[in-house]
């Protein structure tokens, strides 16, 4: 029998190179939990297991909890993506489930489903806008925004960390396309 943790193999092989001011970098695996609950069932809980659920729809909240950053993307009225360290998924699941005992909700580990890229550098917004049709001005999509949207012919979840810094997340089989699309777009 093999040891647990056979080599994980993410679908994107290596960073694609471009000479532009904007870099597209595959991110290391993260723990991701698809979390769904009717807002009323939260019954005023703003935070669960350190995840701040109080953000508006299409926003991103991040909080320091112990040594671990916990990020919650609110993607819809009853839907969050909870992001944590790759090796903490089981602990987080247990803690959240414990906190919501008897409350109707859904928590699904999708850490292997999604792949993320960081898009960074001056003009990163233009690179994303090469395939994403939403308004990415700082007024319409400020830092701290997060939404599900489209890039070319793929669905993505887009987070803005800062003016020139985005995270693009997509399902793993779309990752080579999304990566290729972004890198192509860095060429102007």
């Amino acid at each position, binding site marked *: *029998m*093999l*040891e*647990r*943790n*056979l*080599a*994980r*193999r*993410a*679908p994107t092989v290596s960073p694609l190179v471009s000479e532009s001011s904007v870099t597209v970098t595959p991110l290391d*695996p993260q723990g991701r939990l*698809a979390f*769904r*609950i*009717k807002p009323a069932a939260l019954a005023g809980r703003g935070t669960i297991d350190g995840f701040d659920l109080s953000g508006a729809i299409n926003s991103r909240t991040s909080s320091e909890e112990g040594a671990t950053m916990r990020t919650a993307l609110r993607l819809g009225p*009853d839907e969050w993506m909870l992001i944590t360290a790759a090796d903490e998924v089981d602990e987080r699941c247990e803690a959240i489930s414990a906190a919501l005992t008897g409350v*109707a*909700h*859904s*928590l*699904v*580990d*999708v*850490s*292997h*489903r*999604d792949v993320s890229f960081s898009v960074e550098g001056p003009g990163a917004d*233009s690179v994303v*806008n*090469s*395939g*994403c*049709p*939403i*308004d*990415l*001005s700082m007024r*319409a999509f400020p830092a701290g925004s997060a939404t599900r949207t489209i890039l*070319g*012919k*793929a669905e993505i979840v887009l987070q803005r960390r800062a003016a020139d810094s985005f995270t693009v997340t997509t*399902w*793993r*089989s*779309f990752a*080579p*396309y*999304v990566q*290729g*699309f972004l890198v*192509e*777009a860095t*060429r*102007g």
Partner: protein
Amino acid sequence: MSQPFRRPSGGRIDRSRPLAVTFNGKQLEGFAGDTVASMLIASGQHLAGRSFKYHRPRGILSHGSDEPSALLSVDWRADRGAGYRDPNNRASVVEARDGLVVNTQNHWPSLETDVGAVNDLLSPIFVAGFYYKTFMWPRKFWDRVYEPVIRKAAGLGEAPEVRDADRYSNRHAHCDVLIVGAGPAGLAAALAASADGEKRVILADEGFEPGGALLNDVTSEIDGKPAMAWVAETVATLDARENVVILPRTTAFGYYNHNHVCMVERVSDHRADAPEGLARERLWQVRAGEVVLAAGSHERPLVFENNDRPGIMLAESVRAFVNRWAVLPGNELVVVTSSASAYRTALDAKAAGMRVSIVDIRLDADCGTELSLARDGGITVRTGHTVIKALGGKRVTGLVVAPISANGSIGEKTTLACDCVAMSGGWTPSVHLFSQSRGKLRFDVELDAFVPGTSAQAERSAGACRGVYDLSAVIADGAKAGGGSSTPQATVSFAGFQPVRVLPTDADATKIKAFIDFQNDVTAKDIKLAVREGFESIEHVKRYTTTGMATDQGKTSNMNALGLVAGILDRPLPAVGTTTFRPPYTPVTFGALIGPARDELFDPVRRTPIDPWAEKNGAVFEPVALWRRAKYFPQAGEDMHAAVARETKAVRTTVGIFDASTLGKIEVIGPDAAEFMNRIYTNAWLKLKTGGCRYGLMLREDGFVYDDGVVARLAEDRFHVTTTTGGAPRVMRHMEDYLQTEWPDLDVFLTSITEQWAVIALQGPNARKVLEPFVSEIDLAEDAFPHMTVKTGYVCGVPCRLFRVSFTGELGFEVNVPADYGEAVWKTLYEKGQKHGITPYGTEAMHVLRAEMGFIVVGQETDGTVTADDLGLSGLVSKVKTDFVGKRSLTRPDMVAEGRRQLVGLLTKNPDEVLDEGAQVVDDPGQPIPMKMIGHVTSSYASSNCGRSIAMAMIDGGRTRIGETVFVTTPAGFTEAVISNAVFYDVKGETVDA
């Protein structure tokens, strides 16, 4: 070619930067700032192409994007090899630079000597509606005679012969105000709109230099400064504002819903130094809060015999060439006009050294101050005159003109020798984009033009594109449209014209060619004929004569055509209708529309976690929805048939391994999850125990089969649902729809987990033996882990959802592991399974194996009109449940009618013959055509396990006809087959239900 017609000084060209372009194999010289058109004129070359239908010699009519005639094939990067040439570039907007290779079109063997010009002599047969009339009969002539001839003669230019080697990019953008056009109105609008630094402003102009008509203007002043100084100041101010994006060389070509405007920016065609890889063009998809259209206007040609001779140009264009490009379009100029503006051309041309006279259709009394200015300037003006015809062939050599008397009769003719004619029949506002925006046009009698009436979107038009022509008024109008105000003092423009459709002549109107539409070769005679034949709506006249239907969308011709039709019918012009303008405003390259969506970026190609292994091991792939799946794994020398025979045999005799990762997977969670499943699927779910699996059938509300798949109950409140590969997104949508809209009271949540899990199917009598050594915390024994159950545990040390299921009829497991581990687990099972002869198999073998068992595939056996009973699956439809999606429809009369198409097997008389999927089935191949079709083949394979071909088919009343003989279409005719049960293979040994 030197530049004999270049003026010694002046113009908006950079004489310190000479350049050369190859034109029909010869060097053409010019300067930075030139267009190919201005270089041609500098060299004295006016002949620039042959016309579409009659192959008449054509010159340069215009200086802008409305040019209908001077269309060139341009190889933009001849030095980089093939793939950089495209046809039908307007010489007037091709920005000159070193290295361009341009060629004229539509002639053979040469521009000067064109055999096709015989069409001009044969023109009596090429009348309006020629195609409709001539090629109607006899019908069989169409394929063999007419079509090939038309094909050879038709078309404008030559399509590129190799794939486009350039890059194109795409950009979505948002702004508060988008301004189209950087002439005086657009600049003023941009200035006003951007004063508020919070407003994002985009100013786009199709030219390479802002200024619009002011670029041609050397006499007007604005607030005491030369007009171009005002332009320069304004552009500098806009440049300094961070909230403004100025896009030169950018054509707004489509105005769509909700202020979505598409524009194409020409990024690198003008750059000799463009680095390889720089995009050629960029498509801008702009969503604007407000749009200001400042698109200017188009000058109307005059219609007289031979008005298409090279050297005959629009008056404003002559002015543009003289002033902006410092080239003289000839030495001897006759200005023919019914419009005041052309006098400015005459005065400027005279100042530039041309010999000039004016022929004005208007009487003295109808003219303004321009008349005395011209006469005082020493220009002979013949007012109240008409042009009978132009002389010359490949270049105009003279004009025959004559006075028109008060009663309309033509007086004594005079021939004016000339090598250039500047004509103006007045102006037509460019309402194309306004019309595309669905704005309602209004006819303004004073302006003799359609102008923007009621806007349909957040849009305003300003300046000449809404019929405002005086410079001061244009700037004020632009500023107002931009949300500000301005009261400039500018030189008064020569404005006003007298509409004239066809110049009066005493020639036989049926014998002469006076062109209305230069690009499609439509003459006044053609329009008259169309009206005489009963076409009265302009939309019908357009289609019958093709006027205005060419790539220039009739920018120069529409008003003349409309006016002519109205005149003949003696109706007010708006009663004849106006054309509906559609995108694109000017032709757009396919490259710009496609952008990066080619090759790997054409469509996402979804690959499974196991795909790299399959590729390394020689899999042949097939596309399934967006996925690429391994179809079979040929060994040396095997074709598909042999590989599939080997793969299917291995599954039946030992064990096969199959990548099922693409199956759609949805995790359904919540206290009401079982109730939800009960309502969404046809069968019963409430009693399914945790750890149990069930095959579920899903209907649409109309009762037809929508999807199917195995569903596992992981916990009281948790289901793992699988769907077909292609059905995953729509099943998810279907489920969410019911949850959100019909049953919001249910506490159930859905999460797509298709890509969380890699799925490895092990199928065959030895499946358990292969799997056993790697499983922990799961007892694989038959009693502990029967068919149609699920367990969680570990495989190869990674978490696993293990399904005991089979789509082959053999003992089977589906190993679900987190996707990143998929390939490693697969490799381990494959390597350690060697001692059992484990064989990877692809989708083709999977299909054969399931067909041998009579298992359906949704989308193959079903087509959206098939019920569960049609498939013989009525056992899966609960009779007990009071409701589920689709239940009520199952009792509708047509759903229970006799004779519905039912799933059966078909066995060909010749066991080696494999039927075509989709082939039609008939009872009697001897019956007359059209035959009565009684069904069709849905699946068909060669089955090595059955030792013969097998097929599934949907046949009218099929289940009552087992054993009967039918006939199935083949490429050669018909073949005989016998209707059978749809289960073909008898599983031996430990089977799924052992």
